[in-house]
């Protein structure tokens, strides 16, 4: 038997470190521009924390689009629902939240986050079945259905919880800052960074070390071939949609605590930002979504500090610049 093409040079695994270096380069470039080291550290930590929270909320969105080509403009609803559901635990147990004990704080925060994930995930299953499934492959209808779903969800939240903004103070253990000389790092931002990193590492482990993860990565690239290998991609998609919704829910809790308030339109307000992140990152790419979220947050924070008037358009400018460099995003994993 001829050794088929075995004389070809051994292909090297393709590595593409440039996008991953972008946040580092951007942070270093900003150091002299910001001037003060303490301000730079504060802005950088704020960017990382904000980026991690956006990543948690947007990660499901990018997988949902990559896997099934579904444009879910209603993803923000899961963020708001997650935040509101958390208030069911956090507000009645406000005493525990304000106790000067990390354990007491966590004893409320963790169940609140888990409940938010469970409710958002379950809601995701219903939305996938009722709204998304009838409009597979029809982008215009997907936009109409999911945007309509977002409006209905927001109005339902107003009807259930009332029109007023609900204040949500940080737990006492996460108020204040760690102070190192003249540098102050907000405790909650450190928590947000840690949770974001855990979620990122967890998703990477699932995607790279489990068969389900391989199926998701393969499905993002060629769902028809995954079906031809004997796997029901729609069941897989339902699972991904539920997990993505659950992550959006817990991201909503974190975002609400970050802003110290809950309101029904908080998810809708983040929708454009999340789409910018997943487009910058490359639709379907978790790594790209992670870097995109960090870049968006950095541009928002540094830009807001240096040129406040640019804040409104800074993320759009970032997206334009990235797409001019890489038209399919930082890490293109689909042909879309």
């Amino acid at each position, binding site marked *: 038997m001829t050794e*088929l*093409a075995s004389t070809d040079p*051994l292909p090297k695994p393709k590595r593409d470190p440039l996008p991953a270096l972008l946040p580092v380069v951007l942070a270093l470039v900003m150091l002299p521009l910001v001037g003060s080291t303490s301000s730079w550290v504060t802005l950088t930590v704020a960017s990382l924390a904000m980026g991690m929270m956006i990543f948690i909320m947007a990660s499901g969105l990018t997988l949902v689009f990559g896997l099934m080509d579904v444009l879910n403009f209603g993803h923000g609803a899961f963020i708001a629902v997650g935040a509101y559901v958390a208030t069911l635990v956090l507000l009645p147990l406000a005493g525990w939240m304000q106790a000067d004990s990390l354990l007491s704080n966590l004893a409320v925060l963790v169940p609140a986050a888990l409940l938010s994930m469970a409710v958002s995930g379950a809601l995701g299953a219903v939305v996938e079945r009722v709204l998304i499934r009838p409009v597979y492959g029809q982008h215009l209808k997907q936009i109409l259905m999911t945007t309509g779903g977002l409006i209905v969800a927001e109005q339902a939240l107003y009807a259930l919880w009332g029109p007023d903004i609900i204040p949500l103070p940080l737990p006492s253990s996460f108020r204040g800052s760690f102070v190192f000389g003249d540098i102050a790092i907000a405790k909650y931002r450190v928590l947000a960074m840690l949770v974001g990193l855990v979620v990122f590492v967890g998703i990477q482990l699932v995607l790279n070390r489990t068969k389900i993860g391989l199926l998701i990565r393969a499905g993002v690239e060629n769902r028809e071939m995954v079906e031809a290998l004997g796997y029901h991609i729609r069941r897989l998609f339902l699972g991904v949609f539920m997990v993505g919704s659950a992550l959006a829910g817990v991201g909503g809790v974190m975002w609400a605590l970050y802003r110290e308030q809950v309101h029904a339109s908080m998810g809708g307000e983040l929708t454009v930002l999340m789409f910018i992140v997943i487009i910058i990152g490359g639709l379907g790419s978790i790594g790209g979504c992670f870097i995109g979220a960090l870049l968006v947050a950095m541009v928002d924070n540094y830009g807001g500090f240096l040129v406040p008037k640019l804040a409104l358009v800074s993320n759009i400018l970032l997206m334009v610049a990235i797409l001019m460099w890489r038209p399919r995003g930082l890490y293109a994993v689909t042909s879309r």
Partner: protein
Amino acid sequence: MSDLLRLSGVHTHVGRYHILQGVDFVVPEGQTTMLLGRNGAGKTSTLRTIMGLWQASAGEIRLSGQRIERVATPDIARLGVGYVPETMAAFSDLSVQENLVLAARDGPMDDGRVEWIFGFFPALKRFWLSRAGSLSGGQKQMLSIARAIIEPRKLLLIDEPTKGLAPAIVGSLIECIKEIKRGGATILLVEQNFHAARELGDKVLVMDNGSIVHRGEMAALAADVPLQEHLLGLSLETHQ
């Protein structure tokens, strides 16, 4: 010899196009049936319809006697049908190993089976941990076929495995498929390369305009130059 696959009066519409227009044929068990025809004759559409990727709008498809024309693609695959598409469709973001892990859906890969495949395709062993996206066209085609045979399948549907490959690689690929044949596999093979078809085929079907216009022994068609010219617009001598 029993018929493993039988299509009776199969029609397929894609959008407003009527692609398959009453396709009838059988694929005998343990043999290689070639599906030939000009571009656009409906060969790939036939494989996609059998695989359930396009649903037949009329007619019957039976696999081992069981009707499958309304069965979902993953369930058809689980009935024992392996599919190698024209586009190769190796998952480029996954390594060679990961591509095969996915294809071995019944559990961990069988080491003996993997070694058997390495016997056909030594390059896959060499590039085991490389991303499939970094492989050459021929290597991707090897991977695509390896994926279809990593577990025993009743029927292999292979769509133009030699398309776009260098002649030396085509020769090797033909040898590989012969090895798979010797293992007793039943194959329905779409091919434009008549030389490959002559080497591999036991039976032959020729399609034109969405229906079967000739069926018979591959050796008989290979020996009948006027018939080749009539059916395919070429002869074996001019298509080596």
